[in-house]
Structure formats: C-alpha cells, structure tokens
C-alpha cells in the first residue's frame, strides 16, 4: 500500500457540543471511495469537530476537503434554520 504522506487537519468550531456531534454523525457514514488513496478521520472535542485527511497527493486531499466543506455548509445551514 502506498504511504499517505500528505496530511491536513480541519478544525471546525460549533456553538454547542451537540452540534459538533451531529455534524460528525452526519459526515461519517459515507464511505471513502478510494481508501488506498485517501483516509478521512472525524473526531470531536467539546464544541470542536476535527477532520484529518491523509492522502497520496495534494490533489486527492483537495478534492476530499472541498467535498467535506460542501457537506458542512449544508449541515451548518440546517442548524442555523432548524435548531431551536
């Protein structure tokens, strides 16, 4: 297996711990299509969601990050409108 040398960590602050957990539970079910090229790990600490990308190249990491950010936008927008 090729080594996944390119690493990037994304930290996203939420308002509450619950929101951070919901975001993690929403993002984590979808499988990574090419696990030998990239891995994505999610974790939360208090109100912060951390996402660690480990990939074969800058390019595959960029694609994965942009995908996660697109999904995060939907999640945050839902929280803004419907969390009350």
């Amino acid at each position, binding site marked *: 297996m090729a080594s996944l040398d390119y690493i990037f960590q994304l930290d996203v602050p939420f308002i509450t711990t619950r929101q951070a957990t919901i975001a993690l539970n*929403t993002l984590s079910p979808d499988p990574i299509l090419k696990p030998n090229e990239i891995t994505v790990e999610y974790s939360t600490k208090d109100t912060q969601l951390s996402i660690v990308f480990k990939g074969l190249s800058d390019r595959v990491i960029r694609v994965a990050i942009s995908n996660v950010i697109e999904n995060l936008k939907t999640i945050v*927008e839902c929280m803004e409108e*419907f*969390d009350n």
Partner: protein
Amino acid sequence: MINLDKHIKPSRDYYLALGLEGSANKLGIGIIKHPKGELTATNRAEVLSNVRDTYISPPGEGFLPRDTARHHRNWVVRVLKDALAVAGLVGRDLDCICFTQGPGMGAPLQAVVIAARTIAQLWDVPLVGVNHCVGHIEMGREITGAQNPVVLYVSGGNTQVIAYSKNHYRIFGETLDIAIGNCLDRFARTLKIPNDPFPGYNIEQMAKRGKNFVELPYTVKGMDLSMSGILAFIDSLAGDMFAGNKNKLLVAADGSSVTPEDLCFSLQECLYAMLVEITERAMAHVQLQQVLIVGGVGSNERLQQMMAQMVQDRNGSVFATDERFCIDNGIMIAHAGLLAYRMGQTNELWDTVCSQKFRTDEVYVNWRDD
C-alpha cells in the same frame, strides 16, 4: 390482515412523514399525513405539502451530477422551510423523515441525505430509507386507487414493467440500455429544444404538429426493450436533416421534406408502441386488468392514450397521475417511507448511505399481504 399501527405515537391517531427526493435533477420535499388504520378509499392519505425545485440545464445540454448536486445543496434548506410552512408544522411534529436511498445519481443523492441526517438528529426523529421506484409505485396506487395493477415505470433513469407478487415488486421487463426518458431527453438535445419545463414535454408539443411517420428500428427483445439504437438512428437522421444531406428517409410519402416535428412524432409513436407491447404481455402473463403508469414520462398524454386503447381491448383500465405526482417529488418518498415506518422499519445513521443501484425487487414490501 396487517396491523399498520404497532408503532403509532400514544397520543395520536395519525402519522406525519416528511420525504426528501433528490435522485436526479428535481429536488422535492413533501409532507404526508396518514390516518390510523388501513388506507382505503374512505381513509386516505392526505398531502400536506409538496414543494419542488428543478435544476434546468441550457438547451443542448444535460444535467451533470456535480451541477445537480450543487443545485440541491443550494436549495434544500429553502425548500424544506417552504414544505414545513405550507403544512403548518414544525420538525418535531414528524413521526419520521424519509429520504431516497437509491437508485439515482450518486452526488445529488448524497447532497440531500446530508440534510436528512442533520434534521433527523436536530429534531430527534428517525430516518427511513426509500427505494425511489417503490415510492413511485406506492404513490401511484394511493392517488389513483388502483389496487393491484401492472406498473409501467417510465422516467429519465428507469424503464420497467412491474407486477406485485409475494411481498416484492417483481420486474417483468425493462430496458437493456438507456431509459426512455433519457432517449427523449437526448434527442431533445440533438434538436436543441429547451429543457424547460422538461424536454419530454417539449417533444410532445412538437410531435402534435408532426404528420409524417418515419420508420425507426423497433427493438422489443422478449419482455425487454433496447433504445440506444433507436436514438443513434434518429440522431443521424436529424444530423442529415440539419446538414441538408440527401437521405431518402427524409422525404415523406407526398414528396415533402420531413421536419423536426415529424421526427418527434415518429420517435414517440415507435417508443410508446414498444412500451404498450410489453405492458400488454405482462398483463396477459399475470392476468391483471389494471395498468398504472408512473414516472416522469407517464405524464405524456400520447402514451396514456395509446395505453388506454390497448387496455380497452382487454376490458381493463389505465391509471395515471398528473405531473405533481408522476414527476419526481418528495411526497411519494414520504408516503412509501411512512408505510415502511408503520411496519417498523427505520434506518440507523450508519445505514443511510445512498446507492446508485438499488433494484425495485430488492425491497421487502411487508405492508401488503395480498
């Protein structure tokens, strides 16, 4: 007799379900209400809201997964707010949130399920994954009152002849290559006619003005169909027509030139005749007298008319719905999902991954016992 009320909330005598559909270029969200007990002609489901926003690509272009997913992401929260406002509900009133789990385009499905997962957790409401085709079938049955029909499911992504047997919707015949709606959409692109409101509608309007029938390949293969060859054939005819090339097929019997309208007319007649043929054979095989047409192409009046002619000869009846229910919508997902929910089906978060392939006959239809 099936008990559909084992999971009803103690303080209520009805159910409320929200459905999210985004397997192709329509984003639809709807809310349905089921009264307690078996659904019958006097105890019917009630549509509380049915909101849809369609991604329309420019003439000559199809909708691509990436752009369609972006459209759904941009609109999902607004459509959701509308659906709740029209129904006069808040999220926590719901019994379940239903979403299309497949089949369909991967990226748009995934964009919508993200919203479904988030609101399900925010409101603490269970999720129910729904097969898109079963959504069409159940909604068609509920709206038309057809009890046990042969179902012709015709849309941009699917072409199937289906009949119910022993807790599954069995596929009797289907396309071997492209779907009928895909064939029509792509021919509309060749002609560069608008995709608004949808390409099949515009082909239908042009076909009404067509007079000359151009013979096209007729490709029924047993109970199945093939349509890619027909598309290639008519595309090349259209190519010759626009380029002004000589082609004896482009000269009508009265010596006049074949027009784009004639080609639309011929394509419709040929494709729909094939559909009518396999539907008739399925009716004879399972000895049913009812036909239910669902899916976006089901809104085509010429198809409904041809089907009615065949069914009349067999002393049967045709059921079809209007564009609110046969074109992809959220309410059908809510309806089929709520039936499954009432039988105890819910999906845990890890089990909400969408799939591009999800066959109609995989679903265990335990809410029927006939």
